[in-house]
């Protein structure tokens, strides 16, 4: 009870410590006065009386301290005192404080930003209930359409018929949902509102999609199995993002009629906020439609083609079942289904039948196409930021060690005056903690900024559409980790010098101050600088390699012209055009745009180069046998209007390009590229030869009328030359020989209008839109950009990585240089005496400077020895998946070494010069 009372009293006393202090002093003074008076009365002199009084009182300050220890909460008071003292000390050394806080902020911030992003993209779960229970069918995502009855390695994309087979027969799934593997773009207009249709991304999903995910409607209701029946009233679900941003969360949207691609749909509900669908992508879908509306909306109905594979599957396994058993069941069912279609299978498919299999994988993260795409980049970023964190810690440690050394004398003096060793160490600890806290707080701000920046550059925002559902807020565990690491580094290196100083007998430290030779240079600091130099070299080399690779990529011969060309992207399928109306449409678009002043050429293509997509086909050369199942007979192709090759700037090597001569009623023609000619015609002259497509089961479909130079269309494998490619004429339609039906009706819906302007002309998007609108005001233009921008966009990630790595490379170089400067200056300073002696004995200024420089370069050389092999290893790791990349590029390595050497020279020059300017007499005098 008494103790508690005492504690409470002590708490309160802390508040009144000012007046208590005065009161104590007054009381003690009074006591002493009375004792002095008594001594005076006993006959002592005034001085002696006072002295005796003090003697019998005891040590005043010690007693006051004792009193204070009883009075308040001494621990907390000491803490405050230490904090105030530490703050004052830090304020008196602004350069040091700023340097430490900045380096900490940068290290913590950058690392946190990058690790948070990696964590978000690589590990983000779907925003659904119990993502851990979900399983997807397929290891590697296959996008977006497939045909035939065989898929190499695994069946990972499915047709509607196959999905139904699985859904109805697999007991192991509590629910199995199907959804479009790719995405669709819909031209959307609200019924009853006079406005142009806008293009929004959407997805076809099965009726049980939302129920399987356990997602409830935010407003209205979501799709149900009853909506996914043939003939059911067409309904759709809108995303929360679109509802909020475009319609201002207007409740009347729910139940309203919308026209999607000119077909009426009722929007029955809104998805909850945060639900981004079944895969992480840059542009999440804004509309979800039942699978069975697909024939209603799309021109070529994939739903009812038994062997058109366009769906991904995710399901919830019944609790208690092992996924392996469900997987085994599904494999059996797959074989059953294939066998039931034996009659329709091609010979190739039949040969490949035994290999057909599938895999179940945990599906909590959804379909991981984006993950696969970005994984390598993120890994690189992670390594880079880990390096940076290391360098930053080394720098902080270095700075703290310096500070500790400088304060060595002070510490010894304090100890000699009676300070407790523990108190001194605690002061150093407080200082380090304060710095770490400040660095951590600043680091948080840097982390926010960095995350935002990286997101903006890596996943650019397309106006009007959604953006990647990754929040820019740094993840707490990562922040705490980085913070913890740097705090530990700061504290360890802050306390170490203080601790060692208190072990030393004060007189030793005071006596030995200022006297040292090269041998007594601090080893820890030197090793830190060596480490920094090595890491800086690695980062410099890496950034050099990445930049070189990027330059190679951007400056390669693409096979087409990038200047003066603009690409306007359209999607005629959004406004309900039928395939027989398209040729006229393109003709009118061509005329409208060509009539604009300053426009010299116009053409329309299904896909312009590097626009992100291309169609593929199996090639069957006339006169050669039908390609077998394991023969590589693929080629990519593109459908274009007349005059395309001039417009895009691709040279025709032989024969002609696509012209007006190629009409719907004339012989089907094709223009091939050099790679096609080399691969399929070898030494023969291809012009005049025939080829066909395996899916048409004919080898005499097209006649080759020309050979174009190789051009880059597909964004992949930049380290290999472009693959075989052929171009078809837009007005011409291939039909199946038996049914007379169009083989690729969808290929006539061309996407990219190529506009060539005359030199010096600037074409505004407004005029382009106007020209197109004058042809058809309902045809939305999805985007307008120059071809150069489109090509640039393909290398966005590479550019970002190269830039980030360069930035970090330069940063680490600066940090390493600062570290080197610090160590060199410090050592030179300590050797002032020695230098004085040398100069007195006849050494010249140059020799003294060389002495200092030698020391510095020894460190750099050590750093190089450690760093070079590391740099080569890093180069191998980087190069494993990058295009146009040579990990042993000697020019880059040499450049990196030279850069490091040069900055080392600059860093150590100043101390060297200062050392050489020492006058011997001064040096010897200063102790």
């Amino acid at each position, binding site marked *: 009870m*008494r103790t508690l*009372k*005492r504690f409470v*009293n*002590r708490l309160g*006393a802390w508040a009144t410590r000012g007046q208590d202090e005065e*009161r*104590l002093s*007054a*009381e*003690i003074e*009074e*006591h002493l*006065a*009375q*004792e002095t*008076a008594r001594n005076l009365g006993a006959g002592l002199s005034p001085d002696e009386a006072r002295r005796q009084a003090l003697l*019998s*009182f*005891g*040590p*005043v300050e010690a*007693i006051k301290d*004792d*009193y204070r*220890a*009883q*009075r308040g909460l001494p621990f907390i008071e000491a803490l405050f005192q230490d904090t105030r003292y530490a703050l004052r000390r830090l304020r008196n050394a602004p350069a040091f404080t700023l340097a430490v806080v900045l380096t900490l902020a940068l290290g913590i911030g950058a690392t946190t930003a990058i690790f948070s992003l990696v964590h978000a993209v690589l590990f983000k779960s779907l925003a659904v209930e119990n993502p851990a229970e979900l399983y997807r069918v397929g290891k590697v995502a296959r996008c977006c359409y497939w045909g035939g009855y065989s898929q190499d390695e695994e069946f990972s994309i499915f047709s509607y018929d196959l999905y139904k087979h699985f859904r109805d027969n697999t007991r192991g799934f509590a629910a199995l949902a199907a959804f479009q593997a790719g995405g669709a773009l819909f031209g959307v207009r609200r019924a009853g509102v006079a406005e142009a249709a806008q293009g929004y991304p959407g997805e076809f999903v099965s009726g049980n999609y939302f129920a399987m995910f356990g997602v409830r409607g935010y407003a209205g209701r979501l799709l149900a199995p009853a909506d996914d029946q043939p003939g059911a009233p067409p309904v759709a679900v809108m995303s929360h993002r679109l509802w909020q941003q475009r319609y201002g969360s207007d409740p009347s949207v729910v139940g309203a009629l919308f026209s999607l691609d000119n077909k009426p749909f009722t929007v029955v509900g809104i998805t909850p906020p945060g639900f981004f669908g079944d895969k992480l992508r840059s542009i999440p879908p804004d509309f979800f439609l039942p699978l069975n509306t697909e024939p209603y909306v799309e021109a070529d109905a994939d739903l009812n083609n038994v062997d058109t594979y366009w769906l991904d599957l995710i399901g919830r396994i019944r609790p208690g079942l092992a996924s392996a058993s469900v997987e085994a069941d599904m494999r059996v069912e797959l074989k059953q289904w294939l066998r039931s279609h034996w009659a329709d299978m091609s010979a190739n498919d039949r040969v490949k039948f035994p290999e057909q299999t599938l895999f179940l994988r945990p599906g909590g993260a959804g379909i991981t196409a984006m993950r696969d795409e970005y994984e390598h980049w993120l890994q690189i970023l992670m390594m880079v930021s880990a390096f940076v964190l290391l360098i930053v810690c080394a720098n902080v440690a270095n700075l703290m060690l310096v500070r500790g050394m400088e304060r060595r004398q002070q510490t010894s003096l304090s100890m000699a005056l009676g300070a407790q060793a523990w108190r001194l160490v605690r002061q150093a600890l407080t200082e380090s903690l304060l710095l770490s806290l400040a660095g951590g707080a600043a680091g948080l701000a840097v982390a926010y900024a960095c995350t935002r920046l990286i997101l903006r550059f890596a996943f650019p925002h397309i106006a009007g559409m959604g953006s990647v559902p990754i929040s820019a807020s740094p993840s707490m565990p990562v922040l705490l980790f980085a913070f913890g690491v740097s705090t530990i580094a700061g504290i360890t290196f802050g306390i170490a010098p203080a601790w060692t100083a208190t072990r030393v007998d004060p007189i030793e430290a005071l006596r030995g101050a200022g006297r040292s030779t090269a041998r007594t240079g601090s080893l820890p600091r030197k090793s830190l600088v060596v480490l920094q130099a090595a890491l800086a070299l690695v980062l410099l080399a890496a950034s050099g390699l990445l930049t070189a690779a990027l330059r190679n990529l951007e400056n390669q011969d693409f096979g087409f012209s990038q200047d003066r060309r603009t690409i306007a992207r359209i999607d005629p399928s959004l406004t309900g055009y039928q395939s027989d109306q398209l040729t006229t449409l393109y003709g009118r678009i061509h005329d409208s745009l060509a009539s604009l002043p300053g426009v010299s050429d116009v053409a329309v293509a299904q896909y312009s180069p590097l626009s992100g997509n291309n169609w593929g086909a199996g090639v069957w050369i006339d006169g050669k046998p039908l390609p077998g199942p394991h023969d590589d007979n693929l080629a990519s192709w593109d459908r274009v209007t007349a005059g395309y090759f001039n417009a895009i700037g691709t040279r025709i090597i032989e024969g002609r390009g696509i012209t007006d001569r190629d009409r719907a009623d004339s012989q089907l023609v094709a223009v091939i590229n050099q790679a096609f000619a080399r691969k399929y015609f070898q030494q023969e002259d291809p012009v005049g030869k025939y080829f066909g497509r395996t899916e048409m089961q004919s080898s005499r479909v097209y006649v080759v009328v020309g050979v174009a130079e190789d051009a880059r269309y597909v964004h992949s494998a930049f380290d290999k030359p472009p693959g075989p490619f052929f171009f078809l004429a837009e007005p011409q339609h291939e039909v199946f020989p038996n049914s007379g039906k169009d083989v690729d009706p969808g290929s006539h819906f061309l996407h990219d209008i190529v506009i060539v302007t005359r030199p010096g002309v600037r074409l505004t998007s407004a005029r382009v839109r106007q020209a197109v609108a004058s042809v058809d005001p309902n045809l939305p233009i999805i985007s307008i950009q120059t071809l150069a921008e489109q090509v640039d966009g393909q290398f966005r990630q590479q550019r970002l990585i190269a830039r980030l790595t360069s930035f970090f490379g330069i940063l680490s170089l600066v940090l390493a240089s600062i570290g080197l400067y610090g160590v060199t200056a410090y050592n030179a300073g300590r050797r002032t005496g020695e230098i004085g002696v040398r100069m007195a004995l006849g050494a010249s200024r140059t020799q003294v400077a060389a002495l200092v420089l030698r020391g510095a370069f020894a460190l750099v050389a050590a750093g190089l020895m450690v760093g070079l092999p590391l740099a080569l290893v890093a180069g191998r790791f980087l190069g494993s998946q990058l295009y146009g990349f040579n990990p042993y590029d000697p020019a880059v390595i040499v450049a990196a070494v030279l850069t490091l050497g040069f900055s080392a020279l600059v860093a150590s020059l100043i101390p060297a010069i200062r050392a050489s300017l020492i006058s011997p007499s001064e040096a010897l005098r200063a102790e």
Partner: protein
Amino acid sequence: MSETKNKTEVQQGTLALMVLKTLDVLGPLHGYGIARRIEQISGDLLAVNQGTLYPVLLKLEQEGSIASEWGASENHRKARFYRLTRDGRRQLRAETRDWEQTAAIIERFFAVKAEDLE
């Protein structure tokens, strides 16, 4: 000066007891007065610095055994006077009892001779 006797160190706990007893016997006193009285009573047998009194006074005040207030000393100077509280009186009585018991037991032991323990 006085004979150099071996002065005994005193523990803080016993110093507190002495303070309480002094205040009990002599009524409210200021710090200097308590120190002088303790010196007198112990007859210079105790080697205690007068100043060590003050932390003890603070501790007792925090525990509530004594209370203090400003007053005027003999030479009309401002001084802090301490007096015993009711709690303090109770504590004094309890500790006195404890000490007397302890002293009695020890005395018995000192009076024991070998024969008594047969």
